[in-house]
């Protein structure tokens, strides 16, 4: 679901005034991309769902505390809260198990209604990328998901990562280069 800039600002303004319906609308708008972002970071469907729900609840509490003044966009706030929650999640589960993106988990996530061909194509893409993405540095992976999967603008990515636009551009370039190298190496080995 796509949203215009003015519409997004209106939504944020309404949410700042504790408008619940507006917040639920924001949930509808951002849940998919936020889920994706969390999923690629934690690698498990259940954990991504739990963290997603925690993100929205925490964001609402944050708004109630009237702390939304500093944030220009709701999207950036949601991502920032998600990042913090993921860090907390890692800390808590550090001793329990080593989390990584599992190919089987990833395939399960695909919508069952999609055509078989497309599903197959996606499966291969996902298999390749999902196995390679965790090999990337956390910073690179994050930036690739935000920019190329969730299609956020450089300005938005910079805001989420608390970096300048220039730094973000450089980071994106390096991340893409690193991913390309990984995939090329993989191809060479397979040959």
């Amino acid at each position, binding site marked *: 679901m796509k949203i215009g800039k003015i519409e997004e600002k209106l939504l944020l*303004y309404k949410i700042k005034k504790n408008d619940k319906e507006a917040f639920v609308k924001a949930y509808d708008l951002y*849940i998919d991309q936020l*889920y*994706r972002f969390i999923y690629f970071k934690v690698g498990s469907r259940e954990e991504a*769902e739990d963290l997603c729900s925690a993100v929205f609840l925490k964001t609402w509490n944050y708004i109630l505390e009237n702390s939304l003044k500093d944030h220009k966009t709701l999207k950036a706030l949601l991502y920032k809260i998600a990042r913090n929650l993921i860090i907390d999640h890692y800390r808590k589960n550090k001793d329990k198990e080593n989390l990584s993106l599992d190919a089987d988990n990833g395939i399960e996530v695909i*919508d069952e209604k999609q055509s078989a061909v497309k599903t197959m194509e996606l499966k291969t893409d996902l298999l390749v990328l999902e196995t390679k993405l965790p090999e990337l540095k956390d910073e690179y992976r994050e930036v690739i998901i935000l920019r190329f*999967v969730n299609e956020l603008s450089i300005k938005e990515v910079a805001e989420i990562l608390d970096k300048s636009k220039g730094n973000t551009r450089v980071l994106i370039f390096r991340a893409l280069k690193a991913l390309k190298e990984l995939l090329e190496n993989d191809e060479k080995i397979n040959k």
Partner: protein
Amino acid sequence: MNEKDLLKKLNNLKNIQPDDNWKKNYREILYSQISAGAAVNKSESNLRTIWESLAPGRMFISMAKPVWITSLASILILVVGIGGVYASKNSKPGDSLYIAKIISEKAQLVMTFNEKDKAKLGLEFATNRAKEITQVLEESKEPEDKKGKQVEQLTQDFKKEISQVKNRLTTIKAAEMNNQNKEEEPEVFGANLGRNDQRMEVAEPIKPEVKNDILEENKPAVIATTTKENLNSPDKALEEAEKMFDEKNYGGTIDKIEEAKQIINKEASENGQVKGVSETATSTN
């Protein structure tokens, strides 16, 4: 794999989506959770939201910043400007602040609209030039050539100022003469203006007598001032000042200019008094 393919494949990852049932269920849970926690707020229409975001309060906050910055900057410029003018008061030709002094003098002249005040300012500037000449001559460090040039320039400026003052004084005098001639006639009619017909009828036979009395009272004062002008006019003082200036008696020149200034001031105060008396006399009618 080229970059385009890679980006396309990355974009395919978009298809990873949460389970629809979970999404729907959690939507309801979230709504109930936020409803339980917060005070109920009605959803507002978009128009109202736009209006509120454009309301004067918010506009003021967003506008306040540049306004503060510009006002602070203008205050700073003003303070620096006033400081510069003060600092330049005692400067003489060749000083870096001398230009500021000349500019401030010109600005003062432009900002003054009364011809008499302009004449007074001109006299003040002429005294400044005379003072500057004495300062330049007293200066021992400067070479003689430079001093000579500066004195020459200042002499020209002094003469210019004095001639301007003289011109102003003649125009003021001409204007005063005109006014006197005019005042004599309309004063009789002027007293009746603004009154209704009934009162005019009652007042008509009495009025001319009263007016004549007032005119008779005022006349000697006017004559007195004009005779005084003849005896002790600022023009004469200025002529003497110029003579002294030519004789290079700069101290005497300054004194004479001061004298001329005092005469102008006196005239102004006397004229004011006469006017005041005539105004009170007409208002009693």
